[in-house]
């Protein structure tokens, strides 16, 4: 199966089941560099599973996923981990910041995992924190900042390696609408400035409105949505 021309990340006929529960049942997906694609659908529809499969976190039972022309299934765990470290970025619903590290250490963590020195990693991290307007929180720990601030720190962490693809799983799910809007604005601006593709999993239309294209997942199947302009 060949991926759509020009796509950075593409998936075809993905199937994944957890025991008797079918999460994905022939889902397809593609995204181009710099594109923001929202994956929508009700709870339990398979959105997060699709994201996990696309990011190489969970292997699908069948189907193909290609990233920059490379089939993910042919990579071993170490190669997929390396891909996630260097090419992908992640934002989760609750930030998932390491509570014992300061905010700047959290943001610098992916760079440090890639072997960058601490000083250099924290310098770059501070630059991203500044862009996301949380540089004043650098020395604070996650427990000492608000939910919105924490999520912005998480976005900075996801972008610090200048990833080619940013995976955001309900990034505003735990935030109020005002904070959610601000986080989405900063996230999409920052992603566009680096030409990063964004896979945005959400069930909120308000959040999906920040995307260029929407895909709906229902009962494990996906379909493109036409957007009324």
């Amino acid at each position: 199966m060949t991926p759509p021309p020009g796509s950075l990340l593409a998936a075809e006929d993905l199937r994944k089941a957890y025991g008797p529960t079918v999460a994905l049942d022939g889902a397809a997906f593609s995204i181009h560099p710099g594109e923001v694609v929202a994956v929508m659908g009700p709870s339990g529809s398979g959105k997060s599973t699709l994201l996990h499969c696309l990011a190489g976190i969970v292997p699908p039972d069948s189907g193909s996923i290609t990233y920059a022309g490379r089939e993910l299934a042919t990579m071993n765990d170490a190669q997929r981990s390396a891909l996630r470290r260097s090419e992908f970025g992640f934002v989760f619903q609750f930030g998932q910041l390491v509570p014992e590290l300061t905010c700047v250490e959290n943001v610098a963590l992916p760079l440090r995992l890639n072997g960058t020195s601490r000083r250099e990693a924290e310098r770059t991290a501070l630059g991203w924190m500044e862009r996301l307007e949380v540089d004043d929180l650098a020395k604070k720990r996650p427990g000492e900042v608000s939910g919105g601030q924490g999520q912005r720190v998480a976005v900075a962490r996801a972008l610090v390696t200048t990833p080619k693809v940013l995976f955001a799983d309900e990034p505003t799910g735990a935030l109020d609408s005002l904070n959610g809007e601000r986080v989405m604005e900063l996230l999409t601006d920052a992603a566009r400035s680096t030409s990063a593709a964004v896979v945005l999993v959400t069930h909120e239309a308000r959040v999906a409105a920040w995307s260029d294209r929407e895909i709906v997942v229902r009962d494990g199947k996906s379909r493109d949505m036409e957007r009324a302009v």
Partner: protein
Amino acid sequence: MNVRQWWRDLAMGARFAFTGGREGWVRMLLTGVGVGLGVALLLLTTAVPNALAVRHEREEARLDYTYGRTTQPRADDTFVIADTDTTFRQSEVRGRLVEPEGPRAPLPPGVGRYPGVGEMVVSPALKSLLASDGGKLLRKRLPYRIVGTIGEPGLVGSHELAYYAGAQGLAARIDHSQVNRLDHYGDPAPSTERADPVLVLLTLVVFVVLLMPVAVFIAAAARFGGERRDRRLAALRLVGSDSRMTRRTAAGEALAGSLLGLVLGAVFFLAGRQAAGSVEILDISVFPSYLNPSPLLVVLVAVAVPAATVAVTLLALRGVVIEPLGVVRAARPARRRLWWRLLLPVAGLAMLAPMLGQGRDQGNFNQYLVSGGVILLLVGVTALLPWAVETVVARLGSGSVAWQLAVRRLQLSSGTAARMVNGIAVAVAGAIALQMLFSGVDSVYTTQSANDVSRAQMQVSVPSGIPLAAAARKFARTPGVRRAEGLAGGELGDSGKDPRSSGELTVGDCRALREVAALPSCRDGDVFVLEGGQHDTPQLARSGRTLYFDPSYSGDRGAEIAWTVPRSMKRARSVEDPTNVRRSGFLMTPGALPAGAARTLYQYVYLSLDESVPEAKEYARNTAAEISPMADAAAWASTEQSKRFTSIRTGLLVGAACVLALIGASLLVSQLEQLRERRKLLSALVAFGTRRRTLGLSVLWQTAVPIALGLLLATTVGLTLGAVLLRMTSTPVRVDWASVLSMAGAGAAVVLAVTLLSMPPLFRLMRPDGLRTE
């Protein structure tokens, strides 16, 4: 606030403890098992004094020797009994030959009827040993037909090897030591021996040292599942519980956990008690029925353990503010103060100080001061460790990602880490102190054996009346025996009754005599006077003088056989014999012995063994038993230790190993719980490409740093306590670094084991499933 409300809150807590699905049950089970293991160990400890007492009573009840020198007349209620104890490999075998002299002769405890001649009754352990392939050599030594087993009242342990064999003609061999005539078993007036104060001190400290970590362990077990519980309490606050109510609910939950722990502890104890019957440590085994803790101590455990867990839970909640919207821990908890933490060990030292220099001779150590002092010193470790960990980790810089994750985690919650390590630190500190004490008093209890084991490795005493030369030849033909030299010893006095002066006599053939002296020349019939011995008596060695074999003393009639010192007597230079003694007195070849003198002598054979022959000692013992069941074969070792002292030391090692294993289990449980709490975070870290190695190493550092600090502190406190205890016993302070390192190494091994064991669950928790929210 009424009692009803209190009860309702407690009951709600108890209900929370048992509900909450699989995870709730697992947590409850972990807490229960943790507390249960501690309770079982406590119950076992409280049962030990009773077990020792029962062993002592049984030993006393079967006592079958007298110290008198007069022979009781034969009667219809007397019996003659001969001590034929032997050793098989490393195990002692209690053996008796018995001959009832009348129908009313009492039976030994645990024996239903006297075995006939050629028959024996045996302990169950001996019966199975004799029936096994491994017992074949022993079977040859005990050629009697088994006609019954000795019941529990006649044995001091389930693994004791013992037998009573029927015999004939024992009365002729009564010697008031190995063979006696008696009309009862047991000592009618058992003497209470005054315990050696140093041994009492050692035992006391061993108990405290083993029980302290158990207390720490129970406290740690009470905190299992703390974070989840706090979140649950926050939910309660949301629906209207005030902070007091939530605390009571938490107390109810802890109480339920500890009650389950008590039940499980009782089950573990009963199972362990049953299993104790099949265990033998250093020749000491017990019957399950011995392990009955005193009811008072059981009640104490049943009250103290739940009370302690509730207290620990409430203390843990002290630093936590449970708000309706979540749990708030002070972001920067108050800095730990050193001064009051130092007070504890200082107070402990102050309690021990008055007893410094008392030593063995100055009477008893005050057991309350000793226990109190040791407890305070060890509690001092638990108080100082959180401060030490906090102070040190606050100064630790950044390194690799794994190191940074670990250090930051420790900086954020050093208390948790310190609590986890406390148990090990206390156990190691106590063990180091005890090892030092043991090594220090080693010289008192371990006597360097005087025997020259390069010349002989066994000494067999041969009952008089048995031809010594023939016995020596029989030994020489035994597999594994290189050389056998038979010698006999006796006494020569200057008069037949109550001699003013007496000298030693050694009898043997020329070859055997050369083991004890340098002889100018020798042939049978020669007599020598020794020079250069330890107690030379030249006034006796005048030719023509009449001396007496086996002189009589008041109350002890001897054979009084007269012998004239011959003119042909030669001089011989005494050399060190195989027992490293320079003998004095006379040497005599068998041909020079006057008639009847041979039976006044005690006979023995030195055996030089070929250690390359497997079971050489057992072959020699079998030969000894063939010569006479009453021949006593003793194997020589280069050092000999007081048996009681050795058992305390072994007890400590076994106890320390059990406690370390217990603490290791608690560390593992806490570690796993912590990992489970961080499941989502771990999955997120994996999502953005964190290597397994990085997370594994961070877990290792997270455990290793507090453990290293704990071991350092434990070593310091342990050495201090050890030095104090040595000063108390007036023993020169000497550090046994080998045991310090071995104990510290054991602690470190526990950390490594815990880290390794937590790796598979860690890797499982790192799976992406943790990211699933739906």
